[in-house]
């Protein structure tokens, strides 16, 4: 029934468009077959999902960021009050700074180490497939579950402190996750360990496109290892660099699982990030309006930094 209606409507549209399409006769045939093969009714579930899960909630969330809504009952407009509270130097400001520190260190470390591993494994090494599989393995595992292994490693009487004692470095022993000066580096190590395999695989895919002949020619012409990398390899893997850096930046800025598992944001908020604060404020404290404001800030930061990074990579690859 609906299909019939659709066909009638299409018939009407075809006749209606006849005069205009005369100048593109070659494409007219295509258009007719297009109409025969799919109907817009097939797109309605997707449209519903886009509106109900993406557009409407984002708009409503953006709206409530300017209110003091508690998830239930009455609310009133508070203007920019929520945003001023985020930047007032309190715990949320720490969360903001931590998010930047983690996001940026995470991008740099995963990409440098991932690229080094990929370059090391690229050719000739016999055990490369096995090593690649092993280093990729944490990527498929739950980051919550793997974080608990690391929580144990960082414990007061855990393997890391035990190792330091056994090599005579007792002075370096500490409660790694309970010390504000070491908690962020510890969290970053866990995040890098979990994700470096993904970056490595992305760079391996990029390296596969570098022509060995070109590298060989450069080498015969007397190019050093660094020159070969800089002038032959790097331009060829630039697409991988862009994708890997963008993805890691977004993932780093959104980190939640590792922190919730390792510290819950402690000690005394020293490892809180925006995602953790959003969770606490919204779903533990019930401050939906404030949580929405934080979420909006986080989304805007992600967009700005992603775009900035892309522009930076574009200019550096041209220069």
């Amino acid at each position, binding site marked *: 029934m609906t299909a019939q209606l659709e066909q009638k409507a299409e018939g009407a549209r075809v006749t209606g468009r006849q005069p205009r399409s005369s100048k593109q006769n070659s494409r007219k045939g*295509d*258009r007719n*077959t297009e109409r*025969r*093969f*799919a*109907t*817009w009714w*097939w*797109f309605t579930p*997707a*449209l519903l*999902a*886009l509106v109900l*899960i*993406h*557009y409407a*909630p*984002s708009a409503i*969330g953006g709206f*409530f*960021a300017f209110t003091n809504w508690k998830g239930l009952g009455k609310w009133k407009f508070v203007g920019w009050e929520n945003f001023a509270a985020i930047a007032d130097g309190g715990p949320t400001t720490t969360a903001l700074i931590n998010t930047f520190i983690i996001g940026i260190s995470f991008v740099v470390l995963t990409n440098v180490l991932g690229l080094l*591993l990929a370059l090391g494994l690229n050719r*000739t*090494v*016999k*055990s490369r497939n096995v*090593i*690649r*599989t*092993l*280093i*990729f*393995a944490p990527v*498929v595992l*739950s980051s*919550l579950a793997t974080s*608990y292994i690391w929580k*144990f*490693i960082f414990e007061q009487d855990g*393997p890391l402190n*035990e*190792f330091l004692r056994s090599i005579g470095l007792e002075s370096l022993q500490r409660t790694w996750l309970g010390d504000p000066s070491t908690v962020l580096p510890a969290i970053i190590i866990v995040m890098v*360990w979990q994700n470096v395999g*993904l970056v490595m695989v992305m760079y391996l895919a990029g390296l596969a496109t570098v022509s*060995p002949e070109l*590298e060989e020619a450069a080498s015969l012409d007397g190019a050093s290892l660094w020159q070969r990398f800089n002038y032959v390899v790097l331009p060829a893997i630039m697409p991988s660099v862009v994708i890997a850096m963008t*993805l890691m930046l977004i993932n780093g800025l959104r980190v939640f699982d590792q922190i*919730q598992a390792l510290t819950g944001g402690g000690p005394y908020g020293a490892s809180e990030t925006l995602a953790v604060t*959003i*969770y606490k404020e*919204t*779903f533990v404290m019930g401050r*939906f309006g404030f949580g*929405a404001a934080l*979420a*909006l800030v*986080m*989304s805007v930061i992600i*967009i700005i930094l992603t775009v900035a990074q892309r522009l930076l990579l574009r200019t550096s690859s041209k220069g």
Partner: protein
Amino acid sequence: MFRYTKKTLLREALLILVALIFLLPFYFLINLALKNGNDALTTSAMQLVTNPTLDAFGQAIRGGRQATLMDGMLNSIIITAGSVLVLVAVGSISAYTLSRRTGKLSKAAMGLILVTMVLPAQAAIIPIYVGMRNVGLVGTHAGTIIMYAGALLPISIFLYMGFTNGIARDYEEAAQIDGASRFTVFRRIIFPLLSPATGTVAIFTGLIVWNDFFTGLIFLNGSDAVTLPVVIYNFVGESVSQWNVIFAAIIISMVPILAFFLVAQKKFIQGFTGGVKS
């Protein structure tokens, strides 16, 4: 030029060393899970287990105040399978529609999908939560499947469009001349041709859903439908410092995905990088 020289040997040795250090956490994980409660507390984590026992695994399976590991496993399977099913069905047919229709409407729909990538997803989750709470979908399998499928649909459509655009129309025309309806053409001809994309979509989105903790924590914690990561999270909270039992629980939770990974690792890596690149 790229022959196996002494330098390569050195590089290989270095890489193997790196890999071994990289895998140390898994050594601690398995080693400690096989120790009994007493040894777990008194012996060093580095020391190899002397009398391996499955006690910790038994405790892990029996434990869990609200939901056991097996409850979580079942819920995770239902929710992941349900979400992937919806994503494959809706993603493939939507992508096909968009690639066969090239008018303004199609461009507009593509734009609508693209823009979702920059929408404030973190701000959106709060209204979704409130909306689902109002219609009683929080804490249910169906609500969670709707949430995941809706959130990941743009990625699924993108992955499929990489394939639908490249399918020649000859097959469809031939089938239609033989009297096949539009939906039959899609179901019997197009969908089977899309199976590589279906593999990528299933692996990529399936892994995201299976491992996701945040959504589960918000939408499911406290209900009967809790997924595996949430069960593990609560389990760790309940078994303070019983690391051998915690590690046994973590191993159990990792078994399905790890088995899957080792069997189909090539497809996994392809699916994952393919998904990431779009």
